[in-house]
């Protein structure tokens, strides 16, 4: 069964010493899945915090654990039979309530109302058999004791709010009758219908065209301004991150390798993996350099995460620190500057030198 946190604090009675000040605080979160092939350590000791009105972007490649993190916050791993196949530990504090140890029913009361999620693929996230409006109505009525009529009016209002034309007509449409961008808008309407304070968007624009992506990002930004909610944006696109995020968390192999304010991370990235991500991206705003600088190799298996620094097999600078430290010792997050953390064995001077001399000029 689930490996509960040691505190055992129930929802509503946070231990005073432990209750964090931040709106959302995740401490040493671990999500492991036992499988026939071995234990998949999807998230392995992740900590971060987020204030209301801020946007945190979690960046990483597929299999870095970013989606699992968001699902853990939403409590989605504990639903039905899935709960038997996951081992979770650590703490997730949302607005003074601890979620990892909370009873499923308590979490369910929060889900949708205090925290909501936008999924990547709206076509599979929406029920094809029910009208879009009915699905929004359902989400609203779970948390509000109102008549269907009132809820329907609310659904129309939300559809209008997210920019769907003719919302009174579209409310009776089925998901397949919507285009990709409109479906994603309807998803957002559904997520926001209860004015959640935490909105998690899992690759909300990956399946969309750039023009529609721009519309959706704008929408999320405007709505955040209006409702003052905290937003976690999960993405692999650094362009999207730069567009929308206040803070960035870079994940690799289930752990955070770099975290900090967006400006800092883009301006003075500290981790070789972040350099790799920046170097791999063709950029539309700069002169095209002759070649991209890819990260060699491929992302690690989460069953056999490399020893020491998980990035060492792909890191071009793994041999710079003395001894075999990169291969044997797992680096912990260290403070680089205010709010900017990085987990790397390279010394600050080495990082500074490599970034300014080798990486930055090539970007």
């Amino acid at each position: 069964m689930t490996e509960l946190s040691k505190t055992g604090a129930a929802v509503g009675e946070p231990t005073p010493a432990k209750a964090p000040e931040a709106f959302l605080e995740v401490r040493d979160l671990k999500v492991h899945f036992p499988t026939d092939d071995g234990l998949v350590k999807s998230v392995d000791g992740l900590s971060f915090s987020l204030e209301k009105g801020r946007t945190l972007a979690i960046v990483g490649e597929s299999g870095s654990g970013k989606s699992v993190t968001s699902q853990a916050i939403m409590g989605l791993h504990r639903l039905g039979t899935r709960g038997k196949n996951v081992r979770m530990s650590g703490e997730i504090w949302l607005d003074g309530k601890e979620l990892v140890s909370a009873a499923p029913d308590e979490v369910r009361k929060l889900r949708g109302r205090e925290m909501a999620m936008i999924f990547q693929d709206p076509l599979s996230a929406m029920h094809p058999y029910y009208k879009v409006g009915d699905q929004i109505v359902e989400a609203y009525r779970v948390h509000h004791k109102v008549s269907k009529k009132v809820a329907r009016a609310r659904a129309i209002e939300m559809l209008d709010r997210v920019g769907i034309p003719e919302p009174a007509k579209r409310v009776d449409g089925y998901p397949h009758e919507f285009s990709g961008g409109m479906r994603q808008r309807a998803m957002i309407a559904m997520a926001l219908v209860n004015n959640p304070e935490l909105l998690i968007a899992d690759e909300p624009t990956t399946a969309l065209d750039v023009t529609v992506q721009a519309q959706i990002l704008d929408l999320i930004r405007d709505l955040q301004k209006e409702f003052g909610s905290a937003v976690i944006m999960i993405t692999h696109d650094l362009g999207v991150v730069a567009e929308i995020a206040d803070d960035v968390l870079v994940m690799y192999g289930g752990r955070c390798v770099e975290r900090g304010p967006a400006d800092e991370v883009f301006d003075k990235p500290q981790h070789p993996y972040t350099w790799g991500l920046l170097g791999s991206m063709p950029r539309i705003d700069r002169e095209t350099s002759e070649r991209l600088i890819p990260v060699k190799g491929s992302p690690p298996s989460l069953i056999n995460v490399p020893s020491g620094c998980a990035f060492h097999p792909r890191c071009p600078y793994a041999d710079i620190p003395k001894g075999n430290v990169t291969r044997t010792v797992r680096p912990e997050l260290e403070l680089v500057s205010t709010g900017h953390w990085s987990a790397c064995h390279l010394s600050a001077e080495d990082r500074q030198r490599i970034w300014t001399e080798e990486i930055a000029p090539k970007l």
Partner: protein
Amino acid sequence: MSETKKTDEAAIPQQASASEGSADREVLLRVEGLTKHFPIKKGILQRQVGAVKAVDGIDFEVRKGETLGVVGESGCGKSTMGRVITRLQDPTGGKITFEGRDITRLKTGQMRPLRRDIQMIFQDPYGSLNPRHTIGSIVSAPFRLQGVEPEGGVKKEVQRLLSLVGLSPEHYNRYPHEFSGGQRQRIGIARALALKPKLVVADEPVSALDVSIQAQVVNLMDDLQEELGLTYVIIAHDLSVVRHVSDRIAVMYLGKIVELADRTSLYESPMHPYTKALMSAVPVPDPKRRGQKSERILLRGDVPSPIAPPSGCRFHTRCWKATEICRTTEPQLVELRPGQRVACHHPENFADQAPQDTVLLTAAKEASELVPDAVASGGSAEKEPAAKEAPEPAEAVEASEVKEAAEASEPEKAAEAPVEPTGSSKTEEVSEASETAADASETTETTDVTETTEEASETAEAAEAAETAEAPEAAETAEAPEGAEAAEAVETSGKKTGPGAKTTNEADTAGSAGTQESTDK
């Protein structure tokens, strides 16, 4: 065929060096008026009731050794285009010429020898490899099918190909599921390269891959092009990737090419409003540029259905510059600047092709609300002169393109263009405005324009138009002289440096900054 092969090989070193300015290269593939309609059938009799016009009349050519990028939103027909030019699907109409030979109506059997020369890399590395075959048999299939016995045997050649794309030869006996996405894409590339094709059509070759792997594959394709002298048609929706890999780029919208230009021109001064909107929507990995939301053009709504595409210019339903002519007349893809073909009545960064038509459509008025109009203060090179208020300022910008227009031998627009800034500076009377306009047309003459006879009448008309629309507003303008200055600056720069894209851009900025201020007041 052996002859062409020789020339192909000879061309390799040249290809490696000249990535741009490929105008003089031999044309490998030419496509004229290509259409592909998918019939929609209904009822018991399966009568055709309509058609999805996936590709609806496109022309382009691919030159030897170059990379042509094709971009567009989903549903614009770019993948269908790729499948039709490789003859995986039969075109409905039009003509495809490969190495001077018409391949439009070749039968499957006749097409087979050509398959050697035209290969395709598919988007989905999971779906395009048969899970029951080993990598060895997948990559050796082309040899088997074509009956080719490579030197040293098939196995050796396959292993060479595998190492060429960065896989190890021991992978020969493995199955696709044992590989990651990036490796599978490499297998697809190895298969496509097996027979040393001349043309490789790659349909979204990297979009299914992680960022770090994307870069590996993009670099690999680059290297292979240099090594083997390949010609690519790369279809993708990611504009940054396309920009990185392509020499020339075609922008598609609803089954049509709306702009076709070399990379630099397209990205530095896009002419079609759609291109501009598309590029402004690409997120840039630089948080400092955030908040400059004004730079971004938001298109409203979605791409219309290709079953019943809008009349006239297909983009008119979402364009902020659309006027009546856009609704009624379809713009042709014409070469407005050397190497830059555009299908638009009111192109950006260039003289208006239909200046007489100034009344915006209702949809355009709505759309123009989403177009930033205060960019002038930002000092950015891309200006969006307040289409909201009146289209005249847009023409004023073209004042700066005097010399360019002259070059493009469309003097009437050039003559018309300077009217607005001068009008706004002097402002009093029509006669004076038309005088200055006449002056301006003389200036254009000096910058080697040949046809001048029509100009006078055109100018007078234009002056009138500008006067009636703009003069009352401009009369109240305090800072109007700046507009005039800008216009002058433009003229002088035009005289000094002669036609050239770079100076145009600068002049552009100055001109529109001036006019912007005057119209804003």
